[in-house]
């Protein structure tokens, strides 16, 4: 493997700043990697090599001219294809937007560019970020670099697989119910869902507006912290973005936190959590104990996961989440009506209603339609109070649980996903089972809290197991330091799938 590819974002940025490696060399190394492994992984919807090269040349010219370089100067990255970019297409992996070119660039992408990052392309996702495997992509599924017969998770499966398969040094995804952390867990990379409002959503094609948050995926915690610091901050174009200044996430990242209190939500450690995931998390807890961290028992009653005699798993949070996110998406996706842009039916239609219906019917996938219908139903008059209003109350209770828990601890620790990466087709027939991939991740989105998924080890089948750290609002710095403590103590960092060694 090209030694450039073996460098983390942080190392690569330093090497480029020092002039040891040029941005063009770095970009070429990744374009070569894409040529070699992308056919197997299918992480990208679109790569833009020429544009990437131009960006790299600009960075090199800047450095030669002695100008100050941004913190990501020359670092090749990828962005999820639901982030609007004036270059290339913005498809959301939907047939509806297959040929759509956005007229503007998302704030986060502009921030990456300002930091000097080289954007390699747009990564695959479950259509409009609805799914947990990329099998709902309107084009083709992305494969898990650890085992290409398995899913990479989703919806940011392309972004996670691209990082795991070293098809980019780092990437951006979006997380509505776990869409960054879950694929990060399944692909053995680090994924961050920042506090709601920490990162501007301007230019992120909305799925569940009150839940969506953009965050980075990277091969280690330090890179994730660096990428987060670049994209975070107030944006006057996003009314929900927070005005608080962004701290220096990298300053003490290698310094362990003295007397770190780690809460274990007892509702997440039930029979529903089984096998190797349970063991890996137990080992992680032991690792933390060895660093001197204090382990605290806490309770999140409304995030409880129940399992009945027949083995069926259920969760308040999942129910609440699917009411809120489907309600919002039914409204957010209504604009894809065939009138202003995107797919319009070629059939002859009698009236405008038929034009709307046919254009949508022909171009939106089953899962998207399912969620639009669910959301339309729950917002309908007569059902609003029973579903949407009740879900908002549950949401409040879930958030209150976290507030109470954080009186006793600094961070919470739990698995990212109940299982390791599953096989293609394994859950596609049962949407409910697919929804349960997110049981450990969705509560945070409902509460607006930050979370980070970090590789905790590998299963016997050599599949990554992710663990999740959750913190209170705007505790990103604590999460990065706590995550880095684990990396340092366990030695688990920058996991490389076998295909890279071949």
């Amino acid at each position, binding site marked *: 493997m090209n030694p450039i590819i073996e460098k983390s974002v942080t190392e690569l940025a330093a090497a480029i700043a020092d002039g040891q490696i040029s941005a063009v060399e770095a970009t070429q190394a990744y374009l070569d990697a894409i040529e070699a492994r992308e056919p197997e992984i299918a992480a990208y919807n679109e790569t833009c090599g020429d544009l990437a090269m131009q960006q790299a040349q600009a960075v090199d010219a800047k450095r030669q001219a002695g100008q100050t370089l941004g913190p990501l100067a020359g670092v090749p990255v990828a962005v999820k294809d639901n982030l609007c970019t004036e270059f290339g297409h913005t498809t959301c992996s939907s047939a509806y937007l297959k040929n*759509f070119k956005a007229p503007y660039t998302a704030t986060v992408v502009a921030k990456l560019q300002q930091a000097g990052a080289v954007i390699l392309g747009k990564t695959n996702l479950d259509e409009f970020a609805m799914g947990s495997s990329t099998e709902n992509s309107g084009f083709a599924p992305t494969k898990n670099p650890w085992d290409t017969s398995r899913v990479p998770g989703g919806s940011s499966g392309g972004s996670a697989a691209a990082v795991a398969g070293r098809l980019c040094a780092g990437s951006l995804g979006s997380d509505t119910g776990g869409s960054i952390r879950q694929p990060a867990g399944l692909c053995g990379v680090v994924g961050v869902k920042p506090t709601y409002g920490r990162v501007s959503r301007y230019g992120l094609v909305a799925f569940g507006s009150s839940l969506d948050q953009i965050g980075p995926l990277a091969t280690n915690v330090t890179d994730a912290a660096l990428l987060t610091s670049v994209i975070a901050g107030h944006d006057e174009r996003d009314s929900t973005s927070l005005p608080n200044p962004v701290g220096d996430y990298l300053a003490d990242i290698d310094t362990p936190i003295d007397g770190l209190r780690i809460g274990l939500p007892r509702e997440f450690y039930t029979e529903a959590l089984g096998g190797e995931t349970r063991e890996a998390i137990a080992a992680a807890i032991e690792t933390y104990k060895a660093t001197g961290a204090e382990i605290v028992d806490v309770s999140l009653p409304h995030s409880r996961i129940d399992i009945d005699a027949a083995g069926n798993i259920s969760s308040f949070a999942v129910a609440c989440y699917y009411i809120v996110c489907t309600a919002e998406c039914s409204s957010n996706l209504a*604009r894809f009506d065939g009138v202003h*842009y995107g797919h319009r039916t070629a059939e002859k239609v009698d009236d405008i209603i038929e034009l709307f219906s046919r254009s949508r019917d022909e171009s939106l996938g089953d899962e998207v339609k399912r969620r639009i219908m669910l959301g339309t139903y729950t917002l309908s008059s007569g059902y609003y109070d029973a579903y949407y209003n009740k879900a908002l109350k549950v949401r409040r209770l879930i958030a209150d649980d976290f507030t109470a828990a954080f009186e006793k601890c600094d961070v919470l620790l739990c698995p990212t996903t109940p299982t390791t990466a599953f096989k293609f087709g394994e859950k596609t027939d049962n949407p409910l089972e697919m929804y349960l991939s997110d049981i450990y991740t969705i509560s945070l989105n409902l509460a607006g809290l930050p979370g980070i998924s970090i590789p905790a080890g590998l299963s016997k089948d050599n599949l990554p197991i992710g663990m999740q750290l959750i913190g209170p609002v705007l505790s990103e710095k604590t999460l990065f330091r706590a995550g880095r403590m684990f990396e340092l103590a366990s030695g688990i960092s920058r996991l490389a799938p076998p295909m890279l060694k071949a």
Partner: protein
Amino acid sequence: MVAQVCNLWLLVVGGTGLQPVAVGGTNEKIMTDNNDNVLPIIGMEIHVELATKTKIFCRCLNRFGDPPNTHTCPVCLGMPGSLPVMNKKAVEYSMKVGLALNCTIAGRTKWDRKNYYYPDLPKAYQISQYDMPLASDGYLEIPLEGDTTKKLRVLRAHLEEDAGKNVHDLPGCTGVDLNRAGVPLLEIVSQPDMNSVAEVTGYARAMQRIVRWLGVSEANMQMGHMRFEPNINLHITRDGKIYKTPIIEVKNLNSFRSLEGAVAFEIRRQYELWQDDPDGFTLEKLGKQNRGYDVDREQTVFQRDKEEAHDYRYFPDPDLMPVVVSSDWRDRVAGEIGELPLARRERFMTEYKLTFEEADSLTMDGPTGDLLDAVVEAGAEAKRCSKLLMSRGLALANEKNCTIAMTGIKAWQLADLAKMQDGGDINATAAAKIFDKMTATGDSPADIAQADGLLIVKDDSQIEKWIDDAIAANPQAVAEIAQGGKKQKKSFSFLVGQVMQASRGAAAPADVQKQLTQKLAE
């Protein structure tokens, strides 16, 4: 049909008993037969486009009349990923209207999405305010004939974004112009307190005056700044039993004439239909219906609903934060409102002794009334200024299709002009000329009068010279005056006229007459 119903006389049950009511714009009185007592019950939604510089949720210009889709951006185009950012000015403008309508301003309000599909609505939802309007429970007191007034209750006023416009005059297709999409729109909903056409138009005109007064809307009908949607039904008492006709909402009326025509027509139409079927044409059986208005035929017409039986699936817009109106903010906005038009009209009549017509015209908008106050402040006489404004000011305003204040007249100019006229320095004709000229040039009236020779000449020797010239040039007239008799008066006037002509209007006729009499007597 109209000719037929003209035979009817429609009676309205008022507070004091039966009285005939005008249902048409003219004095046409219609009364019912069978001694039916017919009470029209009318409520109204008024949409007012606010004149903020930019749209409500993006920075695009809020401008009418430019080429299609020239004031658009990702936000108002409803592009995926774009997000709304609230224009605080639009909220303040709405607060002003709410306060002027004696409403309670909500301490906390929010934005909701009203979901429906239509080509001119690019997001397929309109951002509006559903269950927490910015303003609620107010009233507007309107003047009625005979020095009476009536308080009409305002249920609520909420802010929302306007939709774009479908353009149908393109060959082979319908276009969508989104310049209007995102223009702030205030929807003011009345209680059904109006009982006649006069009250409906009185309410609408009073509302126009208030929003213009507050400077929050140009309220220009031709530009669609105000749209009316009256809902009308009749409560008919016959033989002690009360019948209610279906409630008809007439959509999208964009002129006072249409409003008046539609309401008058509906009253007649509903009464006629009810007479044919007193137990069938009722609210219980037929509920609420929408109708449009055909301007050419002056009739309301059946209108298929844009979308049938609507469930808008309102829910709070997660992209916008709730709006918190602190008492400080509300008080500051309230402080900017000042005197309201009806109060000012009253004051102009009592304090400045203006007639109703004068006071009414000069309180149509804020700046024109401010102008009058300023000239009085500057020491000019109110009545004189009012006369100048009512003659040349109003004429120029009509010519330019603007308010009197917008003609360009400055308070100091008007004050100086009025003082000059009152001081006998210029006559009325000169004052009119100077008025027009100073609005165009910005010069002082004294300079204009000087330059154009419009000052009244008070120099007796100069007048004497003109008189001498006139006498010398017209011996015939002088002779006729000397003879006395029939032609004396006419010849005297002729000579005065000759002198005035020589002075090019700058001599005071009284001075000329006095000196000429003396001269002829010598």
